[in-house]
């Protein structure tokens, strides 16, 4: 079999160049049609969270990848800090008015990790109220940020991503960029402790400047039922064109994992320990953010 394979490889080597190129093309067409056939006949599987791995890998990731690789030119560091198997909780800072940082983080983890791990993001409940958005979010493997879902995913050995700053982080004004907000109530720490998975702090630089939010129309936000209504130098003045993010240069750095398996089972109920661990994670992310900002040459390059 091996020798045969080598023979085939040699045969292919002799192929003229156009055949090699078009062979790839046709295989892609054939693969695409097989994919299409499975989709239109409903012959695919989703997990209990509604995560559609095939759709995510084949379609959603392909849509996001150019944005990550070409537009924001995301540089990923320390991806080896994410374990190759078993659960882990990635805790990242949140910014950028629209949660593009979460999506880029998902692409970064999948494309740069040697085990191609799938990141399961925890999202705000607003995501699951909006039509279309909720459907895509579920299919991309996101679920509601609540302890039940997080624990279920972690115990299932998934890599879970959480941005504990929530709307306070993503909707903060431009002047407060890279200043971490309060980390919720530290629920993510107790979830990680319960599941006994390491916490991987993650710092994302570049997302703050994609939509510099210079104002926030509270009235409009109230009318629309959203947590904030951003006003940037281009939005809403230029209409849909103003919603195009600035092409900043991003860096995503994963830090040293913080182990949580050395604690006794009742530790998850200890508020002091929770606050201490939350602060430790927060400090580490903030510190890394400052370090990356010092190293950064320019916002756009």
């Amino acid at each position, binding site marked *: *079999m091996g020798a045969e*394979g080598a023979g085939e490889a040699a045969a292919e080597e002799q192929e003229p160049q156009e055949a090699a190129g078009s062979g790839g093309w*046709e*295989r892609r067409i054939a693969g695409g*049609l097989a994919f299409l*056939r499975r989709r*239109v006949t409903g012959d695919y599987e989703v997990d209990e*969270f509604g995560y559609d791995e095939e759709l995510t890998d084949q379609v959603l990731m392909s849509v996001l990848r150019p944005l990550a690789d070409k537009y924001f030119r995301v540089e990923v560091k320390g991806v080896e800090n994410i374990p190759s198997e078993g659960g882990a909780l990635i805790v990242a800072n949140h910014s950028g008015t629209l949660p593009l940082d979460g999506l880029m983080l998902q692409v970064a983890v999948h494309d740069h990790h040697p085990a191609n791990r799938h990141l399961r993001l925890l999202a705000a409940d607003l995501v699951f109220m909006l039509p279309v*958005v*909720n459907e895509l979010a579920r299919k991309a493997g996101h679920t509601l940020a609540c302890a039940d879902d997080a624990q279920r995913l972690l115990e299932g050995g998934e890599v879970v991503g959480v941005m504990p700053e929530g709307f306070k982080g993503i909707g903060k004004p431009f002047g407060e960029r890279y200043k971490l907000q309060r980390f919720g109530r530290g629920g993510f720490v107790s979830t990680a402790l319960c599941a006994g998975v390491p916490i991987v702090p993650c710092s994302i630089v570049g997302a703050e400047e994609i939509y510099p939010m210079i104002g926030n129309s509270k009235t409009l936000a109230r009318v629309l039922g959203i947590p904030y209504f951003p006003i940037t130098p281009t939005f809403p003045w230029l209409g849909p064109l103003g919603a195009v993010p600035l092409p900043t240069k991003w860096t995503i750095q994963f830090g040293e994992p913080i182990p949580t398996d050395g604690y006794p089972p009742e530790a998850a109920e200890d508020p002091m320990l929770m606050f201490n661990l939350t602060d430790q994670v927060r400090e580490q992310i903030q510190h890394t953010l400052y370090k990356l900002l010092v190293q950064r040459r320019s916002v756009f390059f």
Partner: protein
Amino acid sequence: MGKVVLVTGAARQLGGRFVRRVQRDSGVDRVIAVDAVPPGHDLGDAEFVLADIRQPAIARVLAEHSVDTVVHLDVSGKALGAGGRTAVKENNVIGTMQLLGACQKSPTVQRLVIKSSTSVYGSAPRDPAVFTETTPPKSLPSGGFAKDAVEVEGYVRGFARRRPDVAVCVLRFANILGPDPDSPLADYLALPVLPTVFGYDPRLQFVHEDDVIDVIGIASHEPRRGTLNSGTFNIAGDGVLLLSQCSRRLGRPTVPLLLPAVTWVGSALRTIGMTDFSPEQIRLLTHGRVVSTVQMRETLGFHPRFSTAETFAAYADSRGPGLLPPERVGRAVDRLAGPASRAGHIQLTSPGRGAHRRWRTPRSFRSTTTARGRGARSVPHGAGRGRAAAGPRDPRRPVGRL
């Protein structure tokens, strides 16, 4: 002395099947089948008692036959004959109250099994993705069958408190489907064109009718060794199907409508009596609902024979093809795939030809590729292996060659 089992709702398909089934079980002496209308199906050797569980007469039936196991299946979302939502609600809630009152007075009753529904959890965007038996619902069902089920469970909890000597088992079933189901969701899936809520793709779980009968059987007997059959259990098949998958597997096209329009269409269909498309049903079809079945497996010791997908396949088979049968859609894609795979074929099997000849396919190839059915995937074996072997080389290939 063997057991005397009383089954309510015997005139329904499910009740009738359970009555026929339970009388064959060892240790069961007699089966008393109760309903307010005579059943249209055979009940075997069971004794049918025409009684309305909403009336106190049910207490006399319990006493007369010294019933020790009560299986209450007459909690349903749909009226059996004529009669609207009011009659259904009265039957569910008042019927359960009367039956529980009768059980409380009866000294012989030792076991009570209640058919409930996972709709007690409601469906809301703020709910966790998977409900366990202890998850408190974020928004209680506001009406319809789901509210009945919540109330029924409330009365059952009260009964369990007052009669701690009676083993009470509440079975929360996911959507029951089978060859002959009678549930609002089955009615919905039988529509030629499925109206869906635009921008939402709910996760659904199904449980097969055969599994329903089996699990009620487990709950109505003494627990097997190492298991416990009193308490509340979610019952659902493994896995999850999205509504979009369901419609594609059924071959029924969907019409996405905006949420207000769906509510309107639902109430219109309800008015003309085509389907019981209640608001809670619409919420299910908007946000979906998935329950955890860990308790069912580990505590109750029940392992369903049908997964959600298998249950659905059985249902789809019993319904016949829809407007767009998946086989035909698949064939259409294959026809589309035909030229592509043929081109791949000739190009891969005949190295040395120029790119301009790629699309010319000899007749013999055409027949082999179409015979393969799933033509899209059929890359010749040798070529596939060759590609696998060549894979690592790819990065080093000069750009000009690509």
